[in-house]
């Protein structure tokens, strides 16, 4: 698989470490009244869809940026690549 890195252009996926579902950007609030439930969910349960999947890839053998890749798990086709930082900012998770 080739991942079109937003800053570096086309890179082989083997340069990256795969983390998993991009929902992991949304770490729960540890002070919420149902924080335990939320963290069990966050730590252990996954949607695991057959089809489009937004997922985190870490460019370990490159510029060490985290990317959010949108990929079809039934074909491996990649349709969108964003910097995880931009995604997190849009969600108000980062400054």
């Amino acid at each position, binding site marked *: *698989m080739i991942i079109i890195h937003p800053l570096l252009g086309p890179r*082989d*996926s*083997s340069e990256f470490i*795969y*983390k*998993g*579902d991009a929902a992991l950007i949304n770490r729960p609030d540890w002070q919420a009244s149902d924080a335990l439930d939320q963290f*069990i*969910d966050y*730590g*252990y*349960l*996954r*949607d*695991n*869809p*057959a089809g489009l*999947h937004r*997922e985190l890839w870490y460019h370990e053998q490159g510029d060490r940026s985290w990317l959010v890749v949108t*990929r079809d*798990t*039934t*074909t*491996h086709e990649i349709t969108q690549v964003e910097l995880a930082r931009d995604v997190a900012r849009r969600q108000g998770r980062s400054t």
Partner: protein
Amino acid sequence: MAYSGFRILREALRGHRGWGPAWRDAAPKDHYDYVIIGGGGHGLATAYYLASVYKQSRIAVVEKGWIGGGNVGRNTTIIRSNYLLEGNEPFYEFSLKLWEGLEQDLNYNAMVSQRGILNLVHTDAQRDAFIRRGNAMILNGADAEFMSTEQIVAKYPFLNVNNARFPIKGGLAQHRGGTVRHDAVAWGYARAADRLGVDIIQNCQVTGLRIENGTCLGVDTTRGFIGATKVASCVAGSSSRIMQMAGMRLPIESHVLQAFVSEGLKPILPGVITFGAGHFYCSQSDKGGLVFGGDIDGYNSYAQRGNLPVIEDVCEGGMAIFPNLGRARLLRSWGGIMDMSMDGSPIIDRTHIDGLYFNGGWCYGGFKATPASGYAYAHLLATDTPHHTATAYRLDRFRTGHMIDEKGMGNQPNLH
């Protein structure tokens, strides 16, 4: 019709006209006591033990394609019981004992071959860890022997013991481990279950679970609604897709694992060797092909095919330890979808929905578990209590903190 040597002779003299189909092509009925979703090894074994050991009836196995088309027909066929942890080892040893009697039990030649498995070690720390594992195996009634490099060379003279990065410093052997003909496991269980009245319904995909007031009433399929008192999901890599129909999210990611086979060769490799440090393991099939594999590709996938970097990695690992592999031609490679769980261990449990049960999370090691998984799942379905070897395989263990993490990797499925 029972199979026997005598029967083969008789049929040979009569032009083989007397063999009937090994199982009926059943059409779905309106209602069953048990509907098992998934005609892989585990689903068929569950049906067989439900009927044979637990004396249940009105059982159906519904399979979206043909039985044996999933992982049971794609795996590298290794059986073993060399686990460390208490939640696992008694279960896998129970499975190995069932394999040992399987062919007589099923009246089917599954080609169970206890040719032995050897896990290579390369450092002092690894040797200590493997000896500890061997002791845990022996404490649970399994067999284990630590082999020295000299003993290994005597059995496998072609291994490269002096690899600069991973010199062979010994290995943990389980002589009762080995290989089994994978398709024959599916066919053998199917035939034996069918003979006990189980309906095996192929080309019948489950498209929905009918749940009312917290009770599962049956399954919607491409061949219509099938009612059931108990519905048992057993679909390996497709687990999340089925349980999603009940609104459940699972501690599972689906990943692709690849396998490879060389052209047929004369016998060279007497047992199974695993080179975990180099992501490579290999055995030789009875047809002569070297069957080998390595790590999962590592990203969520339902594609049943992998990518080239892993092929390169596996072949490099193979060349490092088993250099004559390079003289053989690679014949085929393929992939299967693994239900990788958050701690690398499986789940056999009830769900919060009455009448809905779950079996999954087998990762890349569920073939060896086939008999015990079927047995334990049948026990759970028939008695609503866990089988004594499978009490740890609970769905809520991630909430209660009772993970069974053999490798100590944490909640990262692609590292197990």
